[in-house]
C-alpha cells in the first residue's frame, strides 16, 4: 500500500499531514493519510459502527415488552436511531477501506470470525425493563461522554457523523432517564428493578471507557488517537467525568452503587474507586461474554437467512 516514490516525498507528505491536523484542519476521505492513521480510524470507526448495530439487539428484546404505548414508541425510536448510527458509521468505515478493496460484507465476515470486536456493554444481558431504562440512561450517557470527546476529530467524516449521533444520543439518555425516574418513583418492586440494574451494570460502565493505561490489558489505542487528534481526553479522564456527572444523581434517587470504596478525593480532585476486573475486556474481546454468542448468532442468522435477498438484489452480470 502507498509505496512512496522516495523517502523524502513520504516524509514531506507526513509533515504536511501533521501540520494540517495541528492547524485544526479536517482530513477528508480522499486526502493522503499515513497508514497508521487510516488503520487506527478503520479499527475505531468500524468497531463503533458495528457496536451500534449489536447494541440494538439487547434493547430489541424490550421493544415489544415496553409497558405503555409511549414507552413502546420511545424505545422503537431509539433502536431505529442506533441502527441508523451503525449505517452512518459503516459508510464512513467503508470509504476508509477502499484502498484495501474491502466492503461492508468483509466487515460482517470479520465480525463473525471474531476479528471485528463490538463494545463490551453489548455482550451483557438485558434482563429486565429496568435494564432497558438503565441502558438508555447510563450506557448512552457514557457514550455521550466518550463521543463528545471526539466531536473535534481530525478526520472530517467521522467528526460530522458524530455531530449527528451525539445529538440523538442526548434524546436516548433522556428516554432512559424518564424510564428510570418512573421506576424510581414507583413501587418497591419497580425500585428494585433499578437497583438490580445498577448492580449488574456498574462494572460494565467502568470498563466502557477502557483501561487507564497500557498496563491493565497490555494494549491501549488511546495514545495514538490522541496523537492524531482523533480524541482529546484519556480514558481515565472520561471515566472521571462519568462519575462526576452520575454518582450524585444515582445516590440522590436513593439508590446505592456497588462499590464501598467509591469517594471523591478533594485533595487530588479525583474519584477513588474499586478497579473493575480489566481481564473481562479480554473475555468480551474473545466473544465469551454472557450474551456474546447469542448476539452474534442473531446477526449471523439474519445474514444467512437473507442471502437469497442479497443475491436477488445484486446487479445482474450479463
Amino acid at each position: 500500500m502507498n509505496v512512496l516514490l522516495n523517502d523524502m516525498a513520504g516524509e514531506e507528505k507526513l509533515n504536511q499531514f501533521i501540520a494540517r491536523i495541528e492547524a485544526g484542519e479536517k482530513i477528508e476521505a480522499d486526502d493522503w493519510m499515513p497508514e497508521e492513521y487510516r488503520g487506527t480510524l478503520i479499527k475505531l470507526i468500524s468497531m463503533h459502527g458495528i457496536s451500534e448495530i449489536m447494541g440494538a439487539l439487547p434493547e430489541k428484546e424490550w421493544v415489544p415488552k415496553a409497558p405503555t404505548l409511549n414507552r413502546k414508541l420511545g424505545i422503537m425510536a431509539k433502536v431505529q436511531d442506533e441502527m441508523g448510527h451503525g449505517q452512518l458509521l459503516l459508510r464512513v468505515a467503508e470509504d476508509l477501506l477502499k484502498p484495501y478493496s474491502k466492503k461492508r460484507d468483509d466487515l460482517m465476515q470479520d465480525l463473525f470470525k471474531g476479528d471485528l470486536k463490538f463494545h463490551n456493554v453489548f455482550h451483557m444481558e438485558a434482563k429486565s425493563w429496568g435494564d432497558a431504562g438503565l441502558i438508555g440512561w447510563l450506557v448512552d450517557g457514557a457514550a455521550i461522554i466518550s463521543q463528545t470527546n471526539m466531536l473535534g476529530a481530525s478526520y472530517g467524516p467521522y467528526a460530522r457523523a458524530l455531530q449527528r449521533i451525539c445529538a440523538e444520543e442526548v434524546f436516548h439518555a433522556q428516554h432512559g432517564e424518564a424510564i428510570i425516574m418512573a421506576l424510581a418513583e414507583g413501587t418497591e418492586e419497580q425500585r428494585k428493578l433499578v437497583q438490580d440494574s445498577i448492580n449488574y451494570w456498574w462494572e460494565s460502565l467502568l470498563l466502557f471507557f477502557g483501561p487507564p493505561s497500557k498496563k491493565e490489558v497490555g494494549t491501549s489505542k488511546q495514545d495514538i488517537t490522541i496523537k492524531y487528534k482523533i480524541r482529546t481526553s484519556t480514558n481515565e479522564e472520561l471515566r472521571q467525568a462519568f462519575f462526576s456527572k452520575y454518582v450524585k444523581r444515582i445516590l440522590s434517587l436513593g439508590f446505592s452503587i456497588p462499590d464501598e470504596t467509591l469517594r471523591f478525593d478533594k485533595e487530588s480532585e479525583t474519584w477513588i474507586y474499586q478497579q473493575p476486573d480489566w481481564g473481562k475486556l479480554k473475555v468480551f474481546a474473545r466473544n465469551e461474554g454472557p450474551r456474546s454468542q447469542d448476539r452474534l448468532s442473531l446477526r449471523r442468522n439474519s445474514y444467512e437467512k437473507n442471502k437469497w435477498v442479497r443475491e436477488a438484489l445484486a446487479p445482474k452480470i450479463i
Partner: protein
Amino acid sequence: MRNESLKDIAIKELLLQLADDDFIHSYRGAEWLGLAPHIEEDVASASISQDTMGHAAIYYKLLDELGEGDADKLAHDRPAKERRNAIILELVNGPGHYMKDPDYDWAFAVVRNYFYTQAKAIKVQSLHSCSYEPLAEVAQKVQMELYYHLMHWKTWFVQLLGSGHLEAVSRMKAAIGKTMPDFAGVFSLGQYGEEMVELGLIEGEAVLQKKWIEAITPIFESVGLAATIQIGMARGDGRNGQHTEDLEKALKTLSEVYASDKAASW
C-alpha cells in the same frame, strides 16, 4: 336516541379494528429489528413499524376519549378473544423466537406488508369522508406517512418478483399463496359493518376490496403474474374475536411488563 348509541357502537368497533390491526402489525414488524436483509432496510422498516405503532396509539386514544378506558389498558389488557385485528396480521413471521433462532421469511414479510399497507391506504382514503370527524382528521395524518410505507413495500414487492432470481421468485409466489387465503379478513368490518356504511363511517367491504384489487392488479401484471386475486378468510374473522395461538403468544410478550403491575405507573 337508539340511533345515536348504535352510532357509538359502530364508531368504537371501527376504531378497535383499526387500532388492533396496526398494533399487531407493528409488533410483527418490530420482531424483524436487527434481522432485516441489510442495515439500510433495518432502519427503514424500523421507522415504518414505529409509525404504525403511532397510528395504533392514536386510535386507542380516540377510544380513550370516547370513554372506552385508558389507551394503554386497551392496548395491553384485552384478551385475544376481544381483539378485532385481522388474523393474517397476527400470524408469526416464521418459526423461532425473535431473540432466539428466528427462521423468518423476508418474502412473507414483503407480501404481507405490501398487501396490508395497500389495504390500509384504501381504508384511510375512505376515512377522509368519515362522518365521525375526529377519525376523518386522523386519516389525513396517517395518510401522509402511509405514502412512504406503501412506496417502500411496493418497491420490494416489484424488485423481488421482477429479479429473475429463481429462489426469490418462488419464495415470493409461495408467500402470496400463504397470504391470500386469509387476507379478506383485513376488509371485514365485522358484525356492525352494515351500520358503519349506513352511518357514513367508511365504505363497505366489497367496495374496499374491489379498490384494493384494482390497485394491486397492475403491479401483479408488471411482474408477469396473472392477476387472479382470490382472497378469503380461511381461519375465520378476527373482527369477531376469532384468533390463533399466534396472537395469544404475541399478546403475552406485548403485555409482559405491563401485566407485572397493572396499577403501577411506568
